[in-house]
């Protein structure tokens, strides 16, 4: 992104040569260049100076006054007034005085000020004074000798520039304070008791957006349908300044904003960002209460107008809701005429709105029934999802988590963790061949998980509903706008999805030549070797799991745990063992299994080795159906490194 200074330098140099070329041309031609398009013709009424800029109050003239007779050259009060700015250098070149007529050639720029004042013209480098008659030429020469006194305005230092709207600053302050408060959303009944000066309800988001800034726009209400409720991680405004390796601004917990994806009667979408939530707030209750209902938005502030190319995540969600399930209105046509939905192209832009600080102008009609426009998520079995053809498709499914792995990279802060889940359902488990038994789901840091969900994932006892996850390139990922829920949503179209419970223990695919790294599998084989140099075992405290037990000072035969401050009478033995197996299912590879578990079938098998540390005692022993996570696969040498795991 860098190089703004460089860019301006280049533009400036180009401009300077254009200016000198133009001036030279004017002198040599001594005629007004014939191209009249875009030329501003002004008559100067007043001049004063501010810093080095000459500010001139001018009248814009329709045509060049040399075509008018002298009698016509009277100030016509109806001609539009402009403020034309000239640089000191241009002003010196023009030597202009009141009543002079100036031709300003393009490129010049017009700026309209916030307070609706007179328009301002700048970048007026290509300006030329027009001499009206022979007399004026003589007058010009005499005037050139006397210096004209121009009033100079001294600018006060107290006059600073305000780049934000007042509301912007207040909002920034409130988000800095990170006060998570319950949403003060009134339902319809309350609003009747507090009559607000809100005008009639509109049904077009586009109209509301386009009327921004116009008189009375704050009172305009738009009625929309809430298609989805989710939370987005709070956007980082500015990076924290790190001084001496110690960040002074720490961002401990993850703060998120409650967001709605709404759709109006014309089918247009908008994302509305509401207040901050802390990660313990339950998104689930908002989903249940609000999805599918109507709500009224008023006095929204436009945060951004985003397009498909710039917000792929948002638009993949919008695409999953397209085309609308009921006909939508077409702008410009009367309400009664037939509305057509077929062949409507999916939206290419979307406004992101936010509430003005202070009040919340969103009223959800919780009492009313679900709108016809609402499209609940289409639930599929995992088998069907794996067969989806497209890329970046949003999909929803129920699944049971069988294994969870945190991607712990020390260079990455804890709030940017990625979690790898392995999930399955009956559609995958009940099939014999052809499709995997278990699917990997990657949960990125941008997918907000409540503490309740995190617990459920770690325990793995209940099925979890994954709503609007992304499928593409053979992977399922949970990103922004994906929501994980525990309760069955009120409405969902379960198109042929087999939501039956899993019968029996979860089975994994066996290790074979098609197995990929970072997946889980089952394996069986015979022991062909043990890495003696890395094999060791150690006792751990059976109360707290502390692996650093010490010898009891009083009695050196007993073990002592510092964390529990007590003797450990029955320590749990933990072992690390690296074993080489020969697996018939993947006979070409050397299979190396690392094991750190305290109590597994495998280890009990290997106990013999650990008791005697004699490799001979375990060579040839059969090891049956271990569940493992594949850490790496290499082809040269052909080696598979696995870690034994316990399924949830």
């Amino acid at each position, binding site marked *: *992104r*860098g*190089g*703004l*200074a460089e*860019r*301006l*330098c280049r*533009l*400036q140099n180009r*401009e300077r040569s254009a200016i000198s070329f133009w001036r030279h041309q004017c002198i040599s031609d001594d005629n007004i260049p014939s191209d009249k398009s875009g030329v501003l013709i002004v008559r100067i009424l007043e001049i004063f100076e*501010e*810093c*080095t*800029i000459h*500010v001139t109050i001018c009248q814009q003239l329709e045509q060049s006054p040399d075509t008018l007779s002298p009698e016509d050259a009277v100030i016509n009060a109806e001609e539009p007034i402009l*403020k034309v*700015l000239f*640089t000191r250098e241009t002003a010196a070149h023009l030597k202009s005085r009141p009543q002079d007529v100036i031709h300003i050639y393009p*490129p010049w*720029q017009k*700026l*309209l*000020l*916030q*307070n609706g*004042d007179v328009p*301002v013209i*700048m*970048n007026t480098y290509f300006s030329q004074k027009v001499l009206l008659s022979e007399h004026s030429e003589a007058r010009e020469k005499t005037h050139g000798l006397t210096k004209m006194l121009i009033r*100079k*305005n*001294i*600018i*006060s*230092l*107290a*006059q*600073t*520039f*305000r*780049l934000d709207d007042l509301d912007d600053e207040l909002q920034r*302050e409130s988000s800095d304070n990170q006060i998570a408060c319950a949403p003060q959303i009134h339902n319809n009944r309350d609003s009747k008791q507090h009559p607000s000066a809100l005008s009639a309800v509109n049904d077009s988001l586009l109209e509301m957006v386009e009327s921004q800034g116009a008189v009375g726009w704050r009172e305009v209400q738009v009625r929309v349908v809430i298609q989805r409720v989710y939370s987005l991680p709070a956007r980082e*405004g*500015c*990076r*924290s*300044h790190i*001084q001496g390796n110690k960040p*002074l*601004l720490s961002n401990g917990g993850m703060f998120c904003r409650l967001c709605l994806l709404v759709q109006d009667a014309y089918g247009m979408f908008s994302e509305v960002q509401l207040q901050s939530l802390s990660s313990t707030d339950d998104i689930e209750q908002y989903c249940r209460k609000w999805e599918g209902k109507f709500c009224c938005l008023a006095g929204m502030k436009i945060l*951004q*107008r985003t397009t498909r190319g710039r917000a792929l995540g948002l638009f993949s969600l919008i695409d999953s809701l397209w085309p609308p399930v009921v006909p939508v209105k077409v702008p410009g046509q009367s309400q009664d005429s037939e509305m057509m939905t077929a062949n409507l192209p999916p939206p290419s832009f979307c406004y992101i709105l936010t509430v003005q600080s202070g009040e919340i102008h969103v009223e959800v009609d919780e009492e009313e029934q679900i709108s016809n426009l609402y499209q609940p998520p289409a639930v599929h079995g995992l088998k069907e999802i794996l067969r989806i053809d497209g890329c970046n498709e949003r999909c929803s499914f129920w699944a049971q988590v069988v294994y969870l792995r945190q991607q712990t990279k020390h260079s990455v802060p804890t709030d940017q963790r990625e979690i790898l889940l392995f999930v399955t359902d009956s559609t995958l488990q009940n099939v014999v061949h052809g499709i995997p038994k278990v699917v990997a789901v990657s949960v990125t840091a941008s997918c907000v998980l409540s503490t309740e969900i995190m617990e459920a994932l770690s325990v793995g006892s209940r099925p979890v509903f994954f709503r609007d996850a992304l499928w593409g390139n053979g992977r399922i990922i949970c990103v922004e706008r994906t929501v994980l829920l525990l309760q069955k949503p009120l409405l969902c179209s379960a198109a042929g999805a087999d939501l039956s419970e899993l019968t029996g223990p979860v089975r994994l695919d066996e290790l074979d030549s098609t197995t990929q790294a970072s997946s889980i599998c089952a394996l069986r084989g015979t022991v062909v070797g043990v890495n003696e140099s890395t094999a060791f075992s150690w006792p751990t405290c059976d109360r707290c799991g502390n692996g650093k037990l010490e010898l009891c000072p009083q009695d050196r035969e007993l073990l002592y745990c510092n964390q529990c401050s007590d003797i450990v009478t029955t320590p749990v033995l933990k072992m690390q063992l690296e074993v080489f197996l020969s697996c018939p299912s993947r006979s070409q590879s050397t299979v190396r299994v690392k094991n750190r578990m305290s109590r597994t079938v495998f280890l009990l098998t290997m106990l013999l080795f650990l008791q005697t540390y004699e490799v001979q005692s375990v060579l040839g022993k059969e090891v049956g159906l271990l569940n493992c996570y594949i850490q790496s696969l290499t082809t040269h040498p052909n080696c598979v490194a696995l870690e034994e795991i316990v399924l949830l």
Partner: protein
Amino acid sequence: DSTLPAVAEELLREIKKAFQETSHVPDELLLGLKFIFGPCAVPALDLVDQRSVTRVRSPSGRTLYQVLGSSGKLYTCYSSCHFCTCPAFGFSVLQKSESLLCKHILAVYLSQAMGACQELSVSEEQLTNILLAEEEDEG
């Protein structure tokens, strides 16, 4: 009443808007900066490119800006009025009224407009010390 501050403010607002919508500042606005602010414009943009502006905040909400100049010296700019501790400000703005701002103050506005400010939180005492340090230098 004056025109130039309103024009400068509007230009900076346009830059902020364009940047927020497209992450890009169009050429016309850059040239507008040059027109209004003259020789300050390019050095100010350079300071923005280098991320030289830091907003310093204290718990009570007091703020000021520190700009790392090209010479390596740190200049302080106030937020409540246009003031900078650099010599160019004293000369061009205060003495000669030739300029609205110095390149450091312009860099502060541009950094605000483009979200390029670094953030620093300090204690009340530290903020006071920064302000007093300037006074001592001048005294």
